[in-house]
Structure formats: C-alpha cells, structure tokens
C-alpha cells in the first residue's frame, strides 16, 4: 500500500533527529524503532542523502558515513540542522494521553504498584511536554474485577504460572477451572482474561468480573498452539455466532436503544414510530431471558412465542415469590422450582 507523503516525511525527519542523538545505529534497529522494514530504511537513507539546503552542493546535503552503510550501519555525519524532534500536535497528544489515562485506571494497572508507577511517570512526562490540550477526549474503561483476582491474574501472567479459577457464566453457572493465562485485556466496560482452559481443552475468554476466585499455582504454563496468536480484541460476533441457533425477533421502545448498539444482532430495523426491531441468534437462552426481563418495560413484543412465554414464565415465578413473601401465606410447590425450568429450557449450559 502506498505510504502517505506526510507519514514518510515524519519518519525521515525522525530518523535524522534520532541518529543525531544516538550515534551509529544498525539498519535493523532503525527499522524496529520506526516500525518499518530494513528495505524501507535503506530507501529513506537514500532519500536523505540527496536532500539538503538549496544549492545542493555536497556541503549542503545531509550526509552519512558511506563505509558504515556498507556494513549495514547508519552513521549520520551531517544533519543540516534537523536535530530537533518534532513537537506533538494537539490531536496526537490527545490520542496518546487519553489512551494512557484510560490504561492507568484499568484494574490490571491499578493492581500492580510497579506498573502503576511506570504508566504514571510516562503520563506525567507527556503532559509536561504537551500541556493541558489533551482533555478534549476522556476515556474510562472498566475498573475490572476484584482486586485480589486481578492481582493473582497479573502475577500469574508475569510468572507464567497456571491459575485456578472459580467462574460464573452469564447463565449463572459456577465452575472450577484450571487455566493457562495468555492475556489480560480490557475492552470498554469489561476486562477479559484470555487463557487456555483445561476443562474445555480449548482457548477460552473469561470476563474478569465474573471470576469469583483466582489462585496462582506454581505449575508453569504450557505451550498451546494457536492460543497466543488470537487477535487482541474480543471477537464478540464469534461469541454470539452459530448459524444453527434459532432466530428471535424483538421489538423495543426507543429507550432500549443500547441493545441494538451493544449486542451483536443480525439486523436492526428502525420503525416509523421510533421503535426498532432487532433479529438475533439465540445462542445463550439464559442470557437472553435475563436481559429481556431487565429491559421488559421497553420490550413491545417477542417472537417466537416460545421465547416470550419462557421470559414471562420466569418473571411470573419470581413475582410469585414477592407475593408469597408479602402475605407470608400461600406457598409455592415443586412445579415452579427454578431448577426444573432451567433444565427444560437451557440446552446450552456448560
């Protein structure tokens, strides 16, 4: 892909300013530092070599030691005054400072004083250098879970130790698992632990606020092919995917807009009266039932009828508890035992 002229100019100036302070540096190191290839660094050096002040006589040009270049080392001998690194622009400072501030507030950084100190000092040096322009963007991610859980995870990640965790799923099922931690990832409102799960014998992602307990063992983690290379983002679509799962169609009042914005749905249809209708695959009936109860005042209709009945049944059962509690009178029988219903309607429990 063609590189933009401004991005290349930035690197050309950056290379000169850096070399002026750093002395001779290998082509490979330069490429790593500036995030490009050694071949590109060679082209950059070639371009710099013929650039300079008007006149463009040999003394006017940026110059390198030719013998060093042949050995793969870039040794700047004449910078033509281009020795000062560039100030950060407002937008650049905003992007960097906002990311650092968000990072500083994550549980994973807060749980570790050493980490916290590094982020803190990087942030201080940056804001000293850029001024207060950076308040235009303000990002805060999830605070992220129990302090002890987070510190056990981050300690195990650093030491590369296996973890024992007690985890509760979105369907409210608790399980004990042994996992090899791979990455602690904070995305938006939640922190996630990416790990190899021995119980599932597969890679799994755990929401940190649902990890009830975490204990670091002294067992070293093992290599699990393919686990380390997964994309850094959580693939929400994959979590909800499943071509074979049944479709549900729900019509919401406008107030429930976040559902369409945050839940991966198959389609959203805006209706003339401001309502909207989403279609989604039901891969996790327990989660959907619970979410629809939460949003019920803004739910206009649910299809298929079996799903609507399931939601209504669960809610009616809960209502009966409040009634019986008030009157301390009527009792409820075994027919409405929650376990009976769960077993009948939650095929995906794991």
């Amino acid at each position: 892909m063609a590189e933009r002229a401004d991005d290349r100019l930035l690197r050309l100036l950056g290379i000169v300013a850096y070399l002026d302070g750093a002395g001779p540096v290998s082509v490979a190191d330069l490429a790593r530092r500036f995030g490009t290839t050694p071949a590109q660094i060679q082209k950059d050096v070639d371009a710099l070599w013929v650039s300079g002040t008007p006149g463009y006589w040999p003394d006017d040009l940026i110059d390198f030691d030719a013998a060093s270049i042949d050995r793969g080392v870039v040794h700047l001998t004449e910078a033509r005054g281009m020795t000062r690194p560039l100030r950060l622009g407002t937008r650049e400072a905003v992007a960097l400072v906002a990311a650092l501030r968000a990072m500083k507030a994550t549980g994973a950084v807060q749980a570790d004083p050493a980490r916290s100190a590094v982020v803190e000092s990087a942030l201080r040096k940056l804001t000293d250098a850029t001024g207060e322009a950076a308040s235009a963007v303000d990002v805060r991610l999830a605070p992220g879970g129990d302090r002890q859980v987070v510190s056990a995870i981050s300690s195990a990640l650093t030491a590369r130790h296996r973890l024992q965790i007690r985890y509760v799923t979105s369907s409210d099922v608790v399980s004990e698992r042994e996992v090899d931690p791979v990455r602690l990832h904070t995305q938006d409102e939640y922190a996630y632990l990416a790990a190899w799960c021995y119980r599932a014998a597969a890679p799994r992602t755990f929401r940190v606020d649902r990890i009830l307990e975490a204990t670091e063992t002294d067992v070293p983690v093992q290599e699990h092919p393919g686990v380390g290379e997964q994309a850094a983002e959580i693939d929400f679509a994959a979590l909800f995917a499943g071509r074979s799962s049944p479709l549900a169609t729900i019509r919401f009042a406008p107030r429930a807009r976040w559902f369409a914005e945050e839940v991966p749905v198959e389609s959203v249809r805006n209706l003339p009266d401001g309502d909207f209708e989403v279609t989604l695959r039901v891969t996790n009936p327990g989660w959907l039932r619970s979410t629809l109860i939460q949003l019920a005042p803004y739910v206009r209709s649910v299809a298929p009828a079996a799903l609507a009945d399931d939601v209504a049944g669960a809610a009616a059962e809960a209502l009966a508890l409040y009634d019986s509690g008030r009157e301390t009178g009527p009792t409820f029988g075994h027919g409405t035992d929650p376990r009976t219903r769960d077993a009948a309607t939650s095929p995906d429990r794991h």
Partner: protein
Amino acid sequence: MPIDPPPSAQSATSPGLNPAERLLNLVIALVNTNAAMTKQQVRTAVAGYADAPSDEAFERMFERDKDMLRALGIPVVTVGTGGHTDELGYRIDQDAYALPSIDLTPAELGVLSLAAQFWQDKTLQTDINRAMVKLRAAGAGDPSADALAGLAPSVRAVGDAYGPLMEAIEARRAVTFSYRAAYNGTVLTRHVEPWRIAARDGGWYLMCFDRDRQAPRVFRMSRIESRVRVTGPAGAYDIPDFETDVVLGKAHGEIRQAVVAVRPERAGALRARAKPVPDGERQAYSERLPVPAGAPAGGRAGDQAGWDILEVPYRSLSGMASEAAGYGAALVVLEPEAVRAETLRRLTAAAALGSGTGAQAGASRG
C-alpha cells in the same frame, strides 16, 4: 517504489521528486534560511518545486505543502522581507516546533507502545502513530514492554464523527448533525458547540452546548445519523471547566446497600461483590422472605431453608433493579423499597410478555 503515491497523483505535479522528498527539502530550506525565503525563491531554489508546470500549479503545490506541514506540527510562519516590496517571506522557527526535552525510560516507551494499540479507529491510529514516531525520534533506549506483559487495553471505535468533532473542539467551531433521540426515536438536526468526547461503559458521548436548547447537553455518538459538519467561525465559544462524570451523571450515585435473598449457589456474579448480613440482623428480614413449601406458616421463615441473605452495594437504582430482576426466581429484593419496586416493575412487565394478548399488555407500558 512502493512508497510513492499512485503515478497519476505524482506525475502531474512533480515527475522528478516524490512529495515526501520535496517536503523534506522544503523543511530543511526553511529551517536553515537566514531570514526568510520568498515564494519565488522557494520555486527556483528548493528541490522539487521547479517542476511545477505553471504559476498556478506552483501556488497550489506550495499551499498544500504548508497545510500538510502545519498538520504535522511544523508551522511555516510568514514574515515581511523588509525589502523594497511588500512581498512575504516564509521560514520555519525550530523553537516553535521542537518537542520539549522528554526523557522516557525503556519501560515508559514500552507503555506508550502499548497505548498505541488502544484505538480502533483509523484516524486515531494515524494520530497516535505519528506521536510515536516523534517520541521514538526523541527517546534513547529500546522500548521494553516487560512491565505490562500480557496487557492490552482497547476501546471500541468512536466512528467517523471523531475527525470533524476534534477539528471543531480544537478550533472552537460549531457543528451540526442529525441525531436520533432515544426517548422517542425521532431524528432531528442539532446545532451544538462541542466541548469534549468521552467514553464510559462501552459508549462514546459528545459533551457540548446545544444552541437550540441553550443548555449543556450530552449526545451518544452512535446515535448521530449524519456526517458531522463543522460550521461557523473559529473561536466562537469557550469551553468551560467541568468533570466528565458530573456532566454524564455518573458521579452522583453514592454507594448504597440493598439487601437481597439469594438461592444457594445462584447469582454468582452478584455474590462476588456482596457480603452476608450478620446473624443478629437476619431475623429482621425473615418476614419478607418467601415461605418454602411445607414449612410451618409464620415459623422461622426459611432463611436456612433455601435462602442466603446478602448485602449488595450499588450506585444506580435502575442498574441494581435490572440486575436483580435478571436473576428471576433465584433472588428476592428485601430492601430498600425503591429497588424492590423497580424490580417488581420489570418483573411485572416481563410476566406480561407471554404469547397472545400478553405481549400487547407489555407494549402498553413502554
């Protein structure tokens, strides 16, 4: 060369030198000039400009290059040449563009590299990558990510509105866009003065002054349905000092306690932040507990018989009630009355969602 722009874009203006190299020579010339260079001197002396086929083409090229340099944080300043004409001169003042000395440790540089992966949007990635190139040019030592091994925070994409909104905030210019209101779903054109962009709880928000309503407002950016257009003059307003969370209404809720009865082994995520009500106080709650089947009526209602009584901290009434309602028959709210009532409101609406007429009853509540 793969780094060049497509031939069509390049050959029209400068067959000899690609734009990055022309810009480089312009910067070097304007930094090293004694006083200033006139446009004519730039055209005849700086490598790359002599190729401009006409006066007009040169003007366009020079203006575009100045804009690009300004965007990179290298302002070209205009000065009088002091001669017999009123011709303007151009130079670059190094003190104006140089990064103040910033001495980052390898660990700090590592933290910054990690921060560089934070954004999902192309525009923000460009901004942060540029910042990183500048900082790497300034910093000694190799970046080390050890301090944050395995950590990778990121935030969901802001969307296309970010670019124009940032431009507006920087220049203090007003914007217009069409917006879908959540309370009734209607789409209206808004005229606002942007103050700040914030991300909280998975959503992006624009905090601004709404000119039509003459009051501060918060807009959820995912509900902006049109392109954001920057309009009006620069410097049109001031941005007040404010706390993001106060404006967003997140900071109001102090932490309160609810008391709930939970089935054993259930509501695991809620238990993670709850604590048991002390023995001495349990009795006070028993009368509100459902009586289990077969238990003697009015007897020591079943707190041992299938319910744990827990104290749960919460900030938002509706958040607590939603969470409680979501657990269905596994949980009963005992206190406070407000949470109980809100929970019941959700359960009652949900119970009405059943097939046939039930769904209609549910709809009438919205």
